[in-house]
């Protein structure tokens, strides 16, 4: 029973992180058809900026929005100055289907090495604003801390904000329109290029929030968030790469399968589980759970 509760709680907390990372990838993919591998690098740089803010002000709650803002700005810069021209240049030939993936790998490398030059590869301690020790109920200590609760609640708030934004605001609506039918939205007066940049910025902010949430209690290094990219991407692919609900579900599925296998089977399987889960789901649904189909969810 204790094991079951522990596994579910850890799964929930991990799943929330994966879901938000997956959402960041989905936001970019559905607005520009780019799988952004630089996401981990962008989140890492934003987290370093958050770390600098914490080091100076000792206040986590200021660092979180500043990091999110920095992440948004960085993403907007990458979209405007690299991805947009690239889409126009590499639109034909053998490279066309993979050009953006390759360019984002290049950006990831630049961010990695740039961050290592500025902050060195030495691991930095990021103080958590809340306790990272397990919560004690009765005589048993559960591997679930206040920090995990902070993660889950922040992710839920961010997701609900995004949902509200996409469903209820006119900017959110034009974002969905531009993702769904760029040509027709252009005719309807949506400034597609600008709207795409906003999509990237939102994704950058979401990635930055992931970094600032997950790093406290852990160490920060230029490579510390890379593995989250893999998990987030797997979660996004499970969900179908286009649907925010899919990202949330994919994150949860992955988080739960990871925590249950590591508690019930062996913790040595952490890197193999994502591959197995992904392959099983893709064998049944090659375009993910919410992906494909005749009608696209805008």
């Amino acid at each position, binding site marked *: 029973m204790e094991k079951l509760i522990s596994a579910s709680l850890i799964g929930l907390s991990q799943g929330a992180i994966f879901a938000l990372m997956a959402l960041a990838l989905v936001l970019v993919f559905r607005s520009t058809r780019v*799988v952004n591998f630089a996401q981990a690098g962008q989140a890492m740089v934003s987290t370093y900026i958050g770390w600098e803010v914490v080091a100076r002000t000792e206040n986590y709650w200021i660092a979180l929005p500043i990091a999110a803002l920095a992440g948004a700005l960085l993403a907007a810069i990458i979209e405007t100055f690299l991805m947009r021209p690239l889409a126009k240049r590499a639109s034909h030939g053998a490279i066309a289907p993979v050009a953006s993936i390759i360019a984002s790998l*290049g950006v990831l490398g630049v961010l990695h090495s740039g961050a290592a030059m500025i902050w060195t590869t030495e691991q930095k301690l990021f103080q958590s604003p809340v306790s990272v020790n397990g919560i004690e109920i009765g005589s048993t200590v559960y591997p679930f801390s206040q920090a995990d609760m902070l993660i889950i609640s922040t992710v839920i708030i961010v997701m609900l904000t995004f949902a509200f934004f996409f469903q209820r605001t006119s900017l959110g609506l034009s974002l969905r329109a531009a993702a769904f039918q760029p040509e027709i939205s252009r005719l309807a007066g949506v400034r597609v290029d600008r709207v795409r940049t906003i999509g990237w910025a939102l994704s950058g902010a979401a990635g930055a929030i992931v970094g600032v949430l997950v790093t406290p209690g852990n160490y920060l290094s230029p490579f510390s968030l890379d593995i989250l990219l893999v998990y987030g991407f797997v979660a996004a692919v499970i969900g179908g790469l286009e649907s925010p609900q899919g990202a949330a579900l994919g994150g949860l599925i992955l988080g739960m399968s990871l925590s249950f296998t590591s508690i019930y089977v062996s913790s040595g399987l952490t890197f193999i589980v994502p591959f197995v889960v992904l392959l099983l789901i893709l064998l049944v649904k090659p375009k993910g759970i919410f992906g494909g189909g005749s009608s696209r969810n805008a």
Partner: protein
Amino acid sequence: MLNQKGFLAEGVLEMHSTHRRRLILFIVAGAILFYFSSRVGILRLYQGSTVSMYVIAIGSIILLTGYSGQISLGNGAFMAIGAYVAVLSQLHLDLPFFLTFFVAVLGAALAGLVLGIAAARLTGPYLAGATLALAVALPSIANLFPVLGGEQGLGYDSGNAPSLFGEVARFKWLFWISCLAALITCLLLQNILKSRYGRVWKSIRSNSVAAELTGINAPRSKVLAFVLSAGIAGLAGAVLTMSLGTVSPSAFPLSLSFALITGAVIAGISSLLPGSLVGAVVLVGMSQLIGTLTTRFEIGDVLAQNLKELVVSALLILAVVFTPNGPGEKIREMRDHRKHHSHGGHR
């Protein structure tokens, strides 16, 4: 059906002479490399082996991505499979070392078949995701089974040169083998990619529906590309293991898979031998060049260590933006452009 056979027969006649010409070209290249192996130092020999390894590995990406249009972020994983198969077959089956290379190719190709069957249903980002997860998952398997030697890995003995060459230094011997492996791979790749298969893959890449209407079995051809690519990557893994003398999970990080893609893009993703050679030389030469420059100008350690990745990544971005289909095509484009202009002038 009859038509196709007739066409094939004609093709065979024509191909015979080009095959022979290519074979002669490769024998000459081999002879030149053999000559140089006695004229250069150990460092150059070691770099030469590394270049050969990259030529093979980049070839596997060129076949898969440049021709069949599938992307793999996991060819480093197939290299790992090849490497481990080579080592295990030497340890437990006592195979002579050149046979371990064959077994490595077969083992990696078999893994490629399994993944390729799953991958044939996946496109673009979904395939990228599956192969990325594979590249992360596979090296960690080594820690699960004691027979794979865990984090320390296993040793591999590349043996000595046959006595008919007399006394041969270890690095020269390694250089010979890796060059031979690279030359054979390139010859085979060149022939496959210029054959009917190469054209079939290209046609699927540009329009799979149209390709299927002409009677091509697109899923099967894609699986075949995956199998071949995995087998070639497995050979690269065996060559890498041979030159390191050992195999361990840390030799196959995710960055290796990314480096291969970088090399292939710099090479021109649908180019052949000259491209993959350029890509490999850039990858190996870059670290040498930057190492020399940083010691020459006494650049601080932190900067120096990361400069290489920065330059390679920046190069990747520039390559994909400015010469998306490779430097070769760019040069051809410019030449055509000039020709066009001069023709206009004559009129």
